[in-house]
């Protein structure tokens, strides 16, 4: 049971949106009035039982929650250590955890009377979730996506278009998630009067990091209950991949004040931490971008550097501000996995468990492969299976076929 301890890790942010030195609201004046409106609208929704009742209904009947907590017996036997459970977010409608957050934000947008929704997307999962709920509620939807990601995540681009969304390929910068976010912010500055910006992760100006965390916390809350049912106690460790960090924050947050629970976040180490990567905590410093202060990849002049990951959903040079704080206070351990490790985990999981994971959670599985064998057999480990691999099948297929031919 969580008892309210005085120095709770769960009490942030403060009323100006800060987690320690991180977070805040670093945006153009044009956006500030709207962000203050949003903060107010969300604060009202949060205490409105009707809002929660509506959310709960859609989560159950539309998203398909609760998602199962599955004992991965074959992976457990193969690794020979901790007892590994998967939190099956990939079974949600639209195929990832992103839908939990989008549902929440669309409910808030509806309360605010907004008719036009914009979003940025990397892997396309957030874009698909946003396009889906816009279709469901009859809202206009525009999704910004880096041109490189449009190429490597074709299945999701097609899905978004089928759902009636307009996908705008972004040609600036490295043509990936960071640039998509810049472009979405530019759209928002331009169309602020009727547009709601649905951010896909626990980043951006306050209240987004808090609001997205709250919506994703359903993952950890269900995990608590389900683990009690399955094993009669709390898990011993939690592990999730981190791009911006929303699936991880959703799993972690309800457990932050449980001192016996070890928590691991896995960043994308790309080609390796001394080369091209997307590990903001391992290879970055605190800076200010996209409305918040957080760990960022940048050069000595404060110019933002391009991230690299095989996984479009992790290819971002920043991380949510609450993660930066949890790192600085030492509550969460941040690790990283390379492209190669993720590919190996992707294949192992497909073969052993009949679950083709997205490349994003494959990064978490890669670290499970390292950590689990070192734990005793009664150690309960939960991995957030944040998304399914359908979107990555063409890309991984190309890589594996290319290698087979080269041999």
């Amino acid at each position: 049971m969580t008892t309210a301890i005085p120095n709770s890790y769960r009490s942030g942010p403060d009323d100006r949106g800060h987690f320690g030195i991180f977070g805040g609201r670093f945006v153009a004046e044009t956006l500030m009035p709207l962000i203050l409106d949003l903060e107010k609208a969300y604060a009202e929704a949060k205490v409105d039982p009707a809002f929660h009742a509506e959310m709960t209904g859609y989560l159950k009947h539309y998203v398909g929650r609760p998602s199962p907590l599955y004992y991965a017996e074959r992976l457990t036997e193969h690794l020979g250590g901790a007892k590994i459970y998967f939190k099956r977010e990939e079974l949600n409608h639209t195929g990832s955890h992103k839908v939990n957050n989008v549902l929440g934000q669309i409910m808030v947008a509806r309360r605010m009377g907004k008719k036009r929704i914009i979003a940025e997307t990397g892997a396309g999962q957030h874009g698909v979730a946003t396009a889906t709920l816009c279709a469901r509620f009859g809202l206009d939807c525009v999704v910004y996506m880096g041109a490189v990601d449009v190429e490597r995540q074709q299945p999701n681009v097609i899905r978004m278009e089928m759902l009636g969304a307009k996908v705008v390929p972004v040609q600036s910068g490295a043509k990936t998630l960071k640039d998509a976010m810049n472009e979405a912010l530019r759209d928002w500055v331009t169309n602020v009067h009727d547009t709601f910006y649905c951010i896909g992760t626990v980043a951006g100006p306050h209240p987004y990091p808090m609001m997205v965390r709250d919506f994703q916390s359903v993952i950890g809350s269900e995990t608590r209950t389900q683990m009690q049912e399955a094993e009669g106690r709390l898990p011993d460790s939690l592990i999730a991949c981190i791009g911006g960090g929303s699936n991880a924050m959703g799993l972690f947050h309800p457990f932050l004040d449980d001192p016996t629970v070890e928590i691991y976040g896995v960043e994308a180490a790309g080609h390796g931490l001394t080369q091209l990567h997307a590990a903001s905590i391992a290879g970055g410093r605190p800076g200010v971008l996209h409305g918040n202060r957080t760990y960022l990849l940048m050069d000595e002049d404060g110019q933002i550097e391009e991230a690299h990951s095989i996984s479009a959903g992790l290819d971002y040079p920043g991380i949510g501000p609450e993660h930066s704080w949890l790192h600085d206070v030492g509550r969460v351990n941040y690790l990283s996995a390379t492209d190669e490790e993720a590919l190996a985990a992707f294949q192992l999981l497909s073969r052993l468990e009949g679950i083709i994971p997205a490349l994003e959670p494959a990064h978490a599985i890669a670290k499970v492969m390292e950590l689990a064998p070192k734990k005793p057999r009664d150690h309960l480990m939960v991995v957030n299976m944040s998304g399914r691999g359908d979107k990555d099948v063409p890309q991984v297929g190309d890589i594996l076929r290319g290698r087979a031919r080269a041999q």
Partner: protein
Amino acid sequence: MEARFAQLKQEGRSAFVTFVMAGDPDPETSLAIVKALPQAGADIIEIGMPFTDPMADGPSIQAAGLRALKAGMTLKKTLQLVRSFRDSDAATPIVLMGYYNPIYIYGVDRFLEDAKSAGVDGLIIVDLPPEEDTELCIPALKAGLNFIRLATPTTDDKRLPAVLANTSGFVYYVSITGITGAAAADSSAVGAAVARIKRHTALPVCVGFGIRTPETARAIAANSDGAVVGTALVDALRASLDPEGRATPKTVSAVADLAAALAQGVRGAQQAAE
């Protein structure tokens, strides 16, 4: 800055404020351009500090920043550019405009000290709203630099006092909700907005975003204390470059000639109003 606005008031005209990106297309040409601007009629010069992720700027200014970064521009070199300009011009106010991260990484205190000693008069930092005044605005005011804030059409009467509270030098009214380089607002709407802001402050109000021609400059200047032109100058610069994006013999004059025409527009506003 105050002296400049007092002088303009005496002359009975509005300010012509120019924006160019530091280091665009290269540090030397950029210095030559900045030096040419006062002669062309610029009353105040805004100098952009290049940043990789200028989230409130349109394609022209984004590209200008990337050209500058590619040519090796840094925040330190931007301050050097101001210092070099000051060797020959002590009077024209210089305002640095940009985003917070490079300053944060440089170190706020060190930056303010270096900016002051280089001869910078004011700062406009796009992503620091009044809610984050403790970051840079308050320290800048303490260091004797103006902190010029943007007010926008979304800044309503309730919010204006907060926006104006720590503003100094002048108020920069962004005439549209949008990014730099977007279409201009009509001058009557601008006039009404300027009048609204002036009910809350004694500071001069300059208007920018979307001013491209001497005619628009004239119309905006007639209804405000100054007209700011950025994208049009940056576009003139870009049009003068060779296919590899390098400066040509025409680059400095391309910017200066357009600035001179716009300055005529601004000056014409006064005659028209008389």
